[in-house]
């Protein structure tokens, strides 16, 4: 129950909306952010069953453009950036692809995990984790020196970001498209396009961090409040960082700082699917070597068998550590992610977790722990 020093924290353009909604505000990665409004469980269930809206304006953005933009990103990002498509539709609207990747050091340690959107044929926008933005930007700029035809621009001050998530999310966002006659569908999953919503031009992305359908909206900071009001007026429930965490953990999405770090490589984290070593990204040789020999530990999803909730830092008896843990509001049991020795990572393996001195039995489960429509 420590009190933070608000004057040292950044505030998003929606800060007053959060205060007015009675949010509990906490310090998070240098920002004063809403951790919850009405409560984690109702906010979580709103996203699972209807629609929730999150202020994720603390996340950072880096734009890379120019003739060598692709070459620079291919060097930095683990995935094959050349596979992110861009096309102009019959309506004259350009739609770009979205792609997940990790940013590795030479030794394969993970600097960040990122979504990259293609805005134009030679223009990309990469979304960073708030706590890593400055380091990512320095990394991008340092490596851009080898690519003089690529520009790296810090765009963190140019964007606010809202995530509208849940089975009703697309309908709610579609309803605020302007002109009202605009019935063209929103960008599908893993694509992004510029649209006009609630009087503002912004980037609509078919992505999210909840395991539900929905969109993320990247808008100008001055447009964020009106956009927030419009989706809330149509039934989107304001949801905080606490619900964002329980939702992503049920969906088994990684959280940097918990499940990913400089000490862990993408293969052991289960992110080999977004690493294309043949693109020669920084760290590719290290990643290839671990892929060939097999990692010593693997990140598994688990559910506790019985009462108890494991938390980050709890030891797995016989080796390994819990990196994320919570009570799953959807499943009603303690769930989490843990690094365990590779030979104990198979689905169905029984684990014993040391939860502050109490031994809690758990079972390795298939990922994700929650699947939409299940």
């Amino acid at each position, binding site marked *: 129950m420590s009190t933070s020093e608000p004057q040292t924290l950044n505030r998003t353009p929606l800060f007053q909306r959060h205060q007015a909604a009675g949010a509990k505000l906490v310090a998070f990665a240098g920002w004063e952010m809403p951790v919850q409004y009405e409560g984690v469980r109702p906010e979580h269930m709103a996203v699972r069953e209807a629609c929730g809206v999150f202020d994720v304006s603390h996340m950072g953005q880096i734009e890379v453009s120019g003739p060598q933009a692709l070459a620079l990103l291919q060097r930095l990002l683990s995935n094959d950036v050349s596979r992110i498509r861009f096309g102009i539709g019959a309506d004259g609207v350009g739609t770009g692809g979205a792609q997940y990747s990790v940013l590795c050091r030479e030794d394969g340690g993970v600097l960040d995990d990122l979504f990259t959107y293609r805005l134009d044929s030679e223009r990309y926008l990469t979304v960073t984790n708030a706590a890593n933005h400055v380091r990512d930007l320095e990394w991008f700029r340092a490596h851009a020196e080898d690519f003089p035809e690529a520009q790296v621009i810090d765009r963190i001050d140019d964007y606010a970001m809202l995530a509208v998530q849940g089975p009703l999310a697309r309908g709610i966002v579609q309803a605020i498209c302007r002109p009202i006659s605009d019935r063209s569908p929103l960008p599908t999953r893993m694509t992004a396009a510029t649209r006009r919503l609630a009087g503002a031009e912004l980037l609509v992305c078919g992505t999210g961090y909840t395991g539900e359908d929905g969109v993320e909206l990247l808008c100008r900071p001055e447009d964020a409040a009106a956009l927030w009001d419009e989706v809330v007026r149509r039934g989107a429930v304001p949801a905080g960082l606490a619900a964002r965490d329980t939702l992503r953990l049920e969906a088994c999405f990684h959280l940097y700082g918990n499940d990913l770090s400089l000490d862990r490589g993408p293969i052991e984290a289960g992110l080999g699917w977004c690493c294309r070593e043949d693109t020669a990204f920084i760290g590719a040789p290290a990643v290839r070597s671990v892929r060939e020999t097999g990692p010593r530990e693997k990140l598994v999803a688990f559910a506790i068998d019985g009462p108890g909730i494991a938390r980050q830092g709890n030891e797995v008896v016989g080796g390994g550590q819990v990196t994320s843990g919570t009570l799953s509001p959807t499943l009603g049991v303690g769930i989490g992610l843990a690094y365990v020795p590779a030979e104990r990572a198979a689905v169905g393996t029984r684990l014993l977790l040391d939860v*502050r001195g109490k031994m809690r039995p758990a079972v390795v489960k298939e990922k994700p722990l929650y699947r939409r429509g299940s």
Partner: protein
Amino acid sequence: MAQESYPEELLYHPEHDWARVEDGQATLGITWYAQDALGEVVFFEAPPLGTSLTKDAPYAEVESVKAVSDVVAPLSGEIVEVNEALTENPQVINEDPYGEGWLVKVRLADPSERDALMDAGSYVASLRG
């Protein structure tokens, strides 16, 4: 969730616990402030009967979805009864923190320890401070 309140008949510990002292025994729980800060309680496991509590030391944990918090003993004593109903319905701690949401009953080791606790007025003043 309950409305904010701090009953006059209870004694309060700065770590946001309350005690209802009656005839050498005390019923213990957490205050409205503590349950509000914690959010919805999703897990509480009482220590076994007979466990000795030491004033100012943690004796149990309450967990919300997001966090786990120690519960500190406002008084020393031995557990003579635990609120079994909380195993199934821990959210009663939020709904009725001074009534159905009590945690344990203890036989007091040193009834004079109560003199170190705050009355409702002092506790509320400490929250506002």
